[in-house]
């Protein structure tokens, strides 16, 4: 056929499968450690985790976080300990979602959700304040009108802190060393490296079973024992 072979190829393509995702209707599963918009977590008793130390603001390369700490009121403390985040603002016009704030946070107060589809129409809406970032009384992120949450999305708020074994030591693999969260308790550890041999490399968040994922269930250090994806 020579010159005309190309025509055959394009003609055949017409009856082949389509590679397009029907995006707004059907979304691709997001990766487990996807960096989305942040949430401010609370302990299981409802106290805020943020202690107003401003490490996140200091480490932020985009300078998009503004934090002011204040002393806890003695009669009605907001967080356990001395201080709490009195002002907490993230400007999403500047945020690059690098998650350095999550790495810097000493109390796992700030973590990331998987939400990236939020389209505000004015600059004030782009600045998320503490009220908007803080999880609600069920421990779920607050859903703002311009954010595109799908059912089940709100449960995936703190993957990164659970990603690696504490201190990077192999002997800690599978042992959670993080505090419990309001609504979720102590989240199960991710599978260790040894479990990944022969297993699918990166499970998407849609495939995570609600059961503890580790090979051997490890008794949680505290809080609601055994509660995993409750709420």
């Amino acid at each position, binding site marked *: 056929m020579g010159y005309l072979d190309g025509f055959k190829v394009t*003609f055949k393509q017409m009856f082949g*499968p389509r590679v397009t995702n029907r995006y707004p209707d059907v979304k691709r599963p997001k990766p487990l450690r996807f960096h989305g918009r942040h949430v401010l977590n609370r302990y299981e008793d409802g106290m805020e985790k943020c202690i107003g130390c401003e490490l996140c603001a200091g480490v932020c390369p985009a300078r998009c976080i503004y934090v002011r700490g204040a002393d806890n009121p003695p009669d009605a403390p907001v967080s356990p300990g001395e201080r709490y985040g009195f002002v907490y603002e993230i400007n999403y016009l500047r945020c690059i979602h690098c998650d350095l704030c999550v790495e810097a946070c000493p109390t796992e107060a700030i973590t990331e959700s998987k939400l990236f589809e939020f389209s505000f129409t004015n600059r004030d809406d782009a600045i998320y304040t503490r009220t908007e970032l803080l999880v609600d009384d069920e421990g779920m992120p607050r859903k703002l009108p311009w954010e595109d949450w799908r059912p089940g999305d709100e449960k995936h708020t703190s993957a990164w802190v659970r990603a690696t074994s504490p201190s990077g030591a192999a002997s800690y693999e599978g042992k959670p060393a993080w505090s419990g969260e309001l609504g979720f308790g102590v989240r199960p550890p991710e599978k260790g490296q040894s479990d990944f041999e022969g297993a699918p490399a990166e499970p998407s968040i849609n495939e995570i079973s609600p059961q503890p994922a580790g090979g051997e269930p490890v008794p949680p250090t505290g809080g609601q024992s055994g509660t995993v994806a409750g709420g």
Partner: protein
Amino acid sequence: MGDPLYANGVDLAVVLIVALKALVTFVFLLVSVLLMVWFERKVISDMQSRIGPDRAGPWGILQTLADGTKLFFKEDLLPEQADRKIFHLAPYLSAIPAFAAFAVIPIGGTISIAGHTTYLQLADPPVGVLFLLAMSSIAVYGVMLAGWSSGSKYPLLGSVRASAQMVSYEAAMGLSVAAAVLAAASLSTHDIVGAQSTWNWNLWALGGVPFVIYLIAATAETNRPPFDLVEAEQELVGGFHTEYAGIRFALFFLAEFMNTITVSAVAVTLFFGGPSGPHISFLPTLWPIVWFFSKLVCFLFVYVWFRATLPRFRYDQLMDLGWKKLIPLSLFWLLLIAALRIGRDRGWNQPVVVLISLGVGIVAYATLNAALRVGQRLTDDEAADPDVDSHQVASGSAPKAGV
């Protein structure tokens, strides 16, 4: 002889019928452009394993309407360096010939309105084919002036390419069209269609070569891929319409797609018997229109298929193909057909005529080749001459290419 509408003089009813036909043609062209854009986007996305527009209306069929509405409300920008009057004139110079060319296309047989019988075509001038060629030549001015009046370098480059390309392929297209004219012994499109009915299509009556040449030349004339050097996005931003926005840009777009439809309709008329096809006694007026449009859609599909398959030509390849291959070939074929027709009229021996023509053709081809080779050798010799600096640069050994 001519449209029977004017046989009994021109009265008010005749004027009204002509106005109605003009309106119907205009609306039909606008709607068909909407559908053509949608059709092209859908088919090409099928060929690229995509879905294509599917949001506006069922199967995305209203997408073009939405795009057009958007373009209509966009700001109309005027570059500071632009030549105001010509910049404003150019889109219309591009769009109006595209409309006008369709006027002479017969899309069906005859119909009767209020006691008047008329052809299903807006006009049937005795110079129909010449009118088509004239309109496609005038369209060059729209592109040329748009690029020149923008006062910007990429549009100018695009329009220089456009004028060179359109002038080059106009000759090959004219010669292939002349073959069809020769077969019908008339310039009127209605007569050309009549001479082909029912199955004596010029496609095989003329040996296929004029059709292939017409198809290639028409693709080049309309600046469609693989001949879209005029608006080669990777090289020239948008080509001649880079500085245009809003409704003026939409007019260029409209003209481009309308030209595609028109050249397809011309191909159907000249080589595929226009509205001729199997005669069905049920609804005899309707079927010729159906045949015409099914042939037209096949052609439009072929153009989209070209676009999906063929990579863009390089500029020298484009010129080589036009001047060194298509024009000699179509000239030879035209003379062959003319010789055969004269031979038939005078009662000459047909195989002898073919053999003599082939002999002449081979001699002419060899002469042309020899001439081209001499020209190439002279160029090479000059390039190899170390005394001439500018040619050394052109030979490619220096880092700067071209002069």
